[in-house]
């Protein structure tokens, strides 16, 4: 091959925003497949609907702001926001909840701050936090995984999911199938010891617990693929996971009855989705290498603290939003030294 005589940067692959966003969407596939396999069509319907809403609101806002429609819609960032929201929301939520979350994320969290690249906060997490605060009932009930439904091996059919999705009030047959998440049930275990809870609670039975783990491992696989494709560096997600593992291991070792195990913390909730798809958001996170380490570590710390001592069973959204506030501050204090220059005194 003839040597290319072009000036730097010598990129071997396309580095457009749209390309990166497509890779991110591709990387959610393993997790999404697991989610659909264990919990039925709900998440998929949610994601499609969120995608439609995101594209429509994005188009409307772009028109209002007088921006080029084709250029901005083709960077797929709205679709990624919708996809992440769809993955984060419980599979049983009705259409209006997804509509509110997605349009709020795109309009308020993204475009009122100036569009992609200027948003202070992760739009998907803003949308999620909004509906979590506003509709606690819908947001805290997850479907029972495949192994736990009344007839073994049966998950809500496509039609059932669709009817439930489009009804304003909750479908009764769906009510029977919903239950708390593993983290939630651990949080409200009351006076039970951990061993008793694991033996008694159906959501923590080996089969059901397995499904949650598979979903998390799916996200982990997707995250590792993105890492391999160099979409982001390892610093933020790994430091978040390391801090969470260390914290949970420490407290679990101190009192395994009161504190959840590292396994439950790392694989039982939104930890993996958060670590590889939310924390790595290039716009709202810290940018320097050292900054990313601090950023990820603080998120891990906050997630563990809120889960253990706070009011919410899962806390990835709140922790990420809190650290979004702090990202410019972290960047200010972790400015890397320019090569050949002395450190500032």
């Amino acid at each position, binding site marked *: 091959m003839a040597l290319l005589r072009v000036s730097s940067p010598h990129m071997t692959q396309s580095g457009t925003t749209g390309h990166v966003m497509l890779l991110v969407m591709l990387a959610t596939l393993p997790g999404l497949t697991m989610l659909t396999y264990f919990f039925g069509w709900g998440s998929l319907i949610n994601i499609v609907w969120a995608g439609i809403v995101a594209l429509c609101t994005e188009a409307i806002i772009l028109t209002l702001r007088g921006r080029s429609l084709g250029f901005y819609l083709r960077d797929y960032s709205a679709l990624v926001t919708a996809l992440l929201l769809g993955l984060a929301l419980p599979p049983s939520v009705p259409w209006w909840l997804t509509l509110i979350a997605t349009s709020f994320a795109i309009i308020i969290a993204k475009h009122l701050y100036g569009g992609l690249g200027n948003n202070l906060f992760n739009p998907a997490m803003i949308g999620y936090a909004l509906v979590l605060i*506003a*509709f606690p009932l819908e947001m805290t009930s997850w479907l029972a995984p495949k192994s736990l439904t009344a007839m073994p091996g049966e998950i809500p059919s496509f039609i059932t999911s669709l009817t439930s999705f489009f009804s304003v009030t909750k479908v009764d047959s769906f009510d029977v199938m919903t239950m708390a998440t593993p983290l939630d049930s651990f949080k409200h275990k009351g006076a039970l010891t951990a061993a008793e809870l694991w033996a008694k609670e159906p959501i923590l039975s080996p089969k059901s617990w397995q499904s949650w783990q598979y979903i998390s491992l799916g996200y982990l696989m997707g995250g590792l693929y993105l890492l391999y494709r160099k979409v982001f560096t390892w610093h933020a997600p790994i430091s978040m996971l390391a801090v969470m593992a260390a914290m949970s291991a420490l407290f679990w070792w101190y009192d395994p009855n009161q504190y959840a195990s590292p396994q439950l913390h790392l694989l039982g909730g939104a930890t993996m989705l958060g670590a590889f798809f939310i924390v790595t958001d290039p716009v709202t996170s810290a940018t320097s290498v050292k900054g990313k380490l601090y950023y990820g570590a603080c998120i891990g710390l906050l997630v563990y603290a809120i889960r253990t001592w706070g009011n919410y069973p899962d806390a990835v959204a709140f922790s990420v939003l809190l650290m979004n506030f702090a990202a410019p501050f972290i960047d200010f204090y972790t400015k890397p030294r320019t090569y050949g220059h002395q450190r500032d005194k």
Partner: protein
Amino acid sequence: MSTKGYIEITNDGLWHNNPALVQLLGLCPLLAVTASVVNALGLGIATTLVLVGSNLSVSLVRNFVPDTVRLPAFVMIIAALVTCVELLSQAFTYDLYLSLGIFIPLIVTNCAILGRAEAFARKNAILPSILDGFMMGLGFTSVLLILGAMREIIGQGTLFADMHLLLGAIASEWKIILIQDYGGFLFAILPPGAFIGMGLLIAVKSIIDNQISLRKKAHKEISITVNKRVRVTGKIE
């Protein structure tokens, strides 16, 4: 010393220098109590009463209070008036007093009131000061009402609920249910909803101001005659 006309004072209080939308003063009660129209109206009336009273009293004593101790003096006056309003609301609208809670006594710390005493009443005669207090209070109250209505509609799907707390038995039938079987949107009732609603109101005001100034500009451009060019180089012969 008064330099402003009455119309200008009115315009300032209601629009150009609106204490809530432009000066952004008194945000604490503004954001805290505007979850419903009745709370907003109650606090608005209380604040207006205090504003008129404090502007009047400050204007009365403006020539007798030395500059060095004026702030303590103003705060004492405002605190006395707020105590009066608090006792009045306990006497006549006790339920509303309970639901407004700490925010009635907290009117003392509402910077809009001290701000008007310091910026206007201290330098102006009695009548303009009273008008300024009233108009500022009216501007504040109208923002409270709009925000309260927005949050009540979005949050609960109703309008004018519980108005009898403030206006007595005749208002007990005023409640309008705008959306039947509305599940409620808790977010609008909570503080973040207030912040976002407030931001949107400020944005709307900016849009209107922009439109007005654009229209004025367009009007002016037509009337401008052709400019005469001034020659800056070369010799004039």
